[in-house]
């Protein structure tokens, strides 16, 4: 297992956010985590990336217990406009984390250029992020994460703030990148379709306090396509399976805000 989460729990004061989570992610696997809105996805991500310390339980990444941001992990934030540095060019944004790694200059540049080319931005290295469209900015964020050469790529609703067309493009981009680099991806989303489309396995969470509702294997063929995959009966079936779990996780219980099935 590349990532192993065991009995992980997190409370803020007396308020439990995550009750008890156990799941694993194999090397080179693509796992999507879905759950109803407000189910503590962000808390989980912060625990996995070492930004928060869990109250109980452990996350073990590549054999090492996470107790601070691990060097083998990179995170892509949802809000690209806030996580990219507007005072640095695209290239400098990608280079920044590499400087901390102590690689020599030529190697830093090679890695940065390679990952920018991978996401199709080789011609925009000297632009500033705010000169780019939302989709392109999120590509920069992805390139930054790839250049960091992580074993695990953690993504926090990475496509939630772009339009539908761009979203489809970025989904296919991330599938391509993952094949190229043989990287392990954990992607958190509230979009059931997206989860089923991208993942090898989907971890469905319950509402707060969060537990694992079920882990569903997505046995769709590896070669996925926005049109044919999405219209296949298997896709529809899996989609329904996940949706029912999520809807089931939030009947009229009074204590959470009313959340619909996120689309």
């Amino acid at each position, binding site marked *: 297992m590349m990532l192993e989460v065991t009995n992980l729990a997190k409370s803020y004061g007396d308020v439990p956010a995550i009750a008890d989570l156990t799941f694993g992610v194999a090397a080179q696997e693509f796992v999507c985590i879905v759950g109803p809105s407000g189910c503590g996805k962000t808390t989980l991500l912060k625990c996995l990336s070492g*930004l928060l310390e869990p109250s109980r339980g452990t996350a073990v990444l590549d054999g090492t217990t996470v107790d601070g941001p691990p060097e083998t*992990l990179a995170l892509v934030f949802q809000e690209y406009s806030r996580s990219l540095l507007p005072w640095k060019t695209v290239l400098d944004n990608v280079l920044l984390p590499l400087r901390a790694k102590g690689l020599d200059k030529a190697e830093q540049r090679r890695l940065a250029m390679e990952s920018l080319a991978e996401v199709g931005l080789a011609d925009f290295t*000297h*632009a*500033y992020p705010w000169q780019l*469209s939302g989709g392109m900015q999120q590509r920069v964020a992805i390139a930054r994460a790839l250049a960091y050469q992580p074993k695990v790529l953690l993504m926090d609703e990475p496509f939630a703030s772009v339009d539908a067309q761009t979203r489809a493009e970025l989904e296919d981009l991330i599938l391509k990148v993952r094949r190229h680099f043989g990287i392990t991806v954990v992607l958190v989303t509230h979009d059931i379709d997206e989860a089923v489309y991208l993942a090898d396995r989907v971890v469905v969470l319950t509402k707060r306090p969060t537990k694992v509702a079920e882990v569903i294997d997505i046995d769709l063929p590896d070669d996925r396509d926005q049109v044919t995959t999405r219209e296949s009966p298997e896709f529809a079936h899996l989609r329904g399976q996940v949706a029912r779990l999520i809807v089931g996780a939030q009947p009229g219980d009074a204590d959470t805000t009313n959340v619909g099935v996120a689309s």
Partner: protein
Amino acid sequence: MRQRLSNLALELWLPVALVVGWWLLSDTSTSTYFPSLRTIMATFVDTWMFTRFGSDVIPSMARFAYGLGIALVIGITIGTVLGLVPTLRRAFDPILDFFRALPKPALLPLAIVVFGVGDGMKIFIIAFGTVWPILLNTTDGVRGVDPMLHDMARVFGLTRWQRLWQIILPAASPQMFVGIRLSLSIGLILMVVSEMVASTNGLGFFVLLSQQTFAIPQMWAGILLLGIIGYAVNLVFLMVERRVLRWHIGRRAAASGDDHQPTAKPKGRLRRARVVTALSSVFRTNA
């Protein structure tokens, strides 16, 4: 082209008319207090090019520069520390509030007692007057850094030093510039005041002495030069700000325009586009 010319005419006609009017109306002036503009200009050239340039202009500007320099170093350093440690900022809140609000000329007698009447006193008063806007705005800027950037820095393993120089200070810089701009006008006032209260050279000294010795054209020439210096200091500030905060200005322009329209072109062409944007923003002056 025609459009641009008529814009220029619109901006210039009144200033030109005023200067010409002043020149013509004052030309036959026999008033002691209002000498003709012709006389003032002649005196201006006589005085500042370059008889008294070295003896009065240079000392004034040097004191201003030293005072501001000290204020920048102290203000940004302490401001950053206070911004990073909210408890400290809260602890010193009343004291900071008091010194910020204190009308700085009131400290001149104290400065004279402590530093004498030389350059030290003037540099102290300029530095003390200009440090507060810089310090407090730096604190605000640092405190306002997006928490997500701190998360990002930790996840990607940036060192403390990198976080400070690559993230916190650039993110706080627009706010710092707001403070610096305020400091400039306060610093100029204090430069003039300190030279008027106790000095043997400098522009403030020169203007007041000219008035007291009834050298009225000299007084006017001095006032005129102070005006020009004030304007020039502001201009230099704007140029520096435009250069340093290019990203900030560009981002704001991008945000207020069409939302998700990418404005970057692949390489090459981008450079030219940027020059054009920079130029057009220079002509929009004084934002």
